């Protein structure tokens, strides 16, 4: 287990002032304050600090914070907590725990009522005396599970969609990681009893909203990491000289750099388009599906150009570029890749609805 995640688990505080040299050390510190459980992100190398907006913040504010977290490779589930877990808990009417939170959607679980109703209405087991559940199965690749105060689980039970929370210590945890070494842990649940107070039956719409929220949060992180690629690449091509002049003076470099900037602008604007929308609202589906499709589809090109223009230094841990590119490669697949979201975006389209759909917003 990495030092920073251990610190997160124990105190919800990370304070690494280490230089940007490897995946285990970041130029960023994330603080989880106890007061109001509002995570604040500060960057030790920049004078500005980003405070995550309070739980009542607008989608736009939350997206901006998530984007900044993506840009700074924040070693904490900031976007997961603020844009996905907390809003879902509030929507389901469950209390919002302090500290970092995580989520996982529609895993294959065996779910039944712990206290089945004696005289069921409809098919057997579709009613319980209360909402207490018995859950068996594995939650796969849960983001930051080992560091989370609670994990929000959305699943489909025989009696319909359900949302419940658990704490990582209730499960047996197999540590895992994505390409960026961000924790992606498996949680094994063996007939785990989830008390009724932690369970809500939810509508299929809320289950779908969870997918949209997760995709939006991930898109914002990708947009941030893409910006980081631009920042680092421009800094590199300006500073590095070859054949007596900066790389940025070479026409061939300019051509590629412009494409990098363009692809990043595309992702940013796709995320920005979702900012005025309520992720649960009717207009959100198209815009969020488009944002995640674009973000995931652009990741390869952004990482490719950034690495090409960094030359050999970019393929090492000596340069912070890997923090951004390994995240891009991971995040594009998480919460639905471009294939999944492109299909969802295209499925309802017809020759007559295509243009009206594209002009739904603004």
């Amino acid at each position, binding site marked *: 287990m990495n030092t920073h995640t251990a610190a997160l688990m124990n105190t919800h505080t990370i304070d690494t002032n280490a230089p940007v040299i490897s995946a285990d050390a970041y130029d960023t510190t994330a603080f989880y304050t106890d007061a109001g459980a509002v995570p604040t992100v500060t960057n030790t190398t920049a004078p500005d600090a980003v405070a995550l907006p309070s739980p009542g913040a607008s989608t736009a504010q939350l997206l901006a914070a998530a984007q900044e977290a993506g840009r700074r490779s924040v070693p904490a589930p900031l976007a997961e907590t603020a844009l996905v877990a907390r809003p879902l808990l509030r929507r389901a009417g469950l209390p919002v725990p302090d500290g970092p939170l995580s989520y996982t959607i529609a895993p294959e679980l065996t779910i039944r009522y712990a206290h089945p109703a004696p005289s069921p209405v409809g098919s057997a087991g579709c009613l319980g005396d209360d909402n207490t559940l018995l859950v068996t199965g594995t939650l796969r690749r849960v983001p930051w599970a080992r560091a989370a105060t609670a994990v929000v689980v959305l699943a489909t039970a025989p009696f319909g969609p359900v949302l419940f929370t658990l704490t990582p210590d209730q499960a047996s945890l197999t540590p895992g990681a994505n390409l960026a070494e961000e924790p992606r842990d498996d949680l094994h649940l063996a007939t785990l009893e989830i008390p009724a107070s932690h369970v809500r039956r939810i509508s299929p719409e809320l289950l779908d909203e969870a997918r949209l929220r997760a995709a939006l949060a991930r898109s914002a992180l990708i947009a941030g990491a893409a910006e980081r690629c631009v920042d680092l690449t421009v800094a590199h091509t300006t500073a590095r000289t070859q054949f007596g002049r900066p790389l940025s003076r070479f026409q061939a470099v300019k051509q590629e750099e412009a494409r990098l900037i363009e692809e990043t602008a595309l992702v940013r604007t796709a995320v920005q388009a979702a900012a005025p929308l309520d992720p649960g609202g009717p207009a959100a589906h198209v815009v969020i599906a488009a944002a995640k*499709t674009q973000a995931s589809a652009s990741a390869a090109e952004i990482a490719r150009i950034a690495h090409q223009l960094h030359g050999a230094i970019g393929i090492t841990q000596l340069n912070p570029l890997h923090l951004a590119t390994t995240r891009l490669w991971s995040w594009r697949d998480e919460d639905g890749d471009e294939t999944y979201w492109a299909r969802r975006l295209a499925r309802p389209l017809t*020759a007559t609805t295509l243009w009206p759909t594209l002009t739904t917003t603004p």
Partner: protein
Amino acid sequence: MSPSTLSPTPTLSPIAFPDVALPESARRLRAEVRAFADEERARGTVLGRPDSWLAGWDPGFSRRCAERGWVGMALPTEYGGAGRGFLDRYVVIEELLAAGAPVSAHWVSDRQAGPSILQHGTEEQRRFFLPRIAAGQCFFSIGMSEKNSGSDLASVATRAERTADGWRLTGTKMWTGGAHVNDYAIVLARTDDAEDKHAGLSQFIVDLRAPGVRIEPIRLMSGEHRFNAVHLEGVDVPDGMLLGERGSGWKQVTGELAFERSGPERYLSTFPLLVSLLRELEQRSATAEQLVQVGILTARLHSVRQLSLGVAAALDAGHSPDTQAALVKDLGTRLEGALVDTVRSILPTPADSHATPGSHPELLAFALLHSPGYTLRGGTNEILRGIITRGLEQH
């Protein structure tokens, strides 16, 4: 590398795009334009063809748009315009282009000549031209490019010599769209020799039917006659037709580029082909792989449109987002071309210029034969990318 050697993080502001919220008036307008396009489709004038801002020449259609106040609509009411904002105009043109409506007759007057005369013209020029433009009765061409001046406009060789009461223009303009059917051209010519190639250029409003104007067709690969070589063989232009200041031609021309580069025409030229593809797919139920490709294309269209709207919002707010406009044009025009290739691979169809007009194979042939032009007109993409990185460096 230690942290102390890292350069300060540069910001993205030269390529930052403002948020866009279209005014309620624009939403109402969208519904009106859509209904109008449906009516016109029913009467057979809106054919859903690609590249309709270049190839869809129909003065009658332009006049009907003008009657609704949709030509020169951003011009002030005192000059016959509708006094609507830039975003309202954006909605009108994106609706017409998405429908594949024939807007090319009034296109240049609406997009460039009108705003340019409003900004640089004399009061007399405004009073004469602007009401005619807004009424759809006066159509313009642009005479900038020459045989040896494409993206390098400063190298124009057309000369304007001083005469007793005006100017005499000599030279040949190339790629002058619609000069054989339009009324006037705004011509960039050298009035003074100067060390600095950008100095000494001036703009003139030239009557395309004046003596000495000889128009020679330049046919496209498809055989269409859209462009011309306009030979100016000693054309007399009165003093009153100098547009703006003598010697300020370069500044005037480049000042308009953000308007020219970032509009919906820079990503929608081939959009009607995607509509046609969906119509084909509806008849045979799309496969999962076809859906994925349609979805990826749709996401990109959505994203480029958001960027294009961002430039419109910046223009509306009085900024000059030149770098952003170059970015939108590079992305958008590449998307126009990529759309043709993707549509072709989603549903393999032999392109056929002689197939039934409006059928998928015919539209595909049309879009394909036009496709090399998308990334050339209005400044080549390689030059645009230089503008983007320069914008970043200057920041």
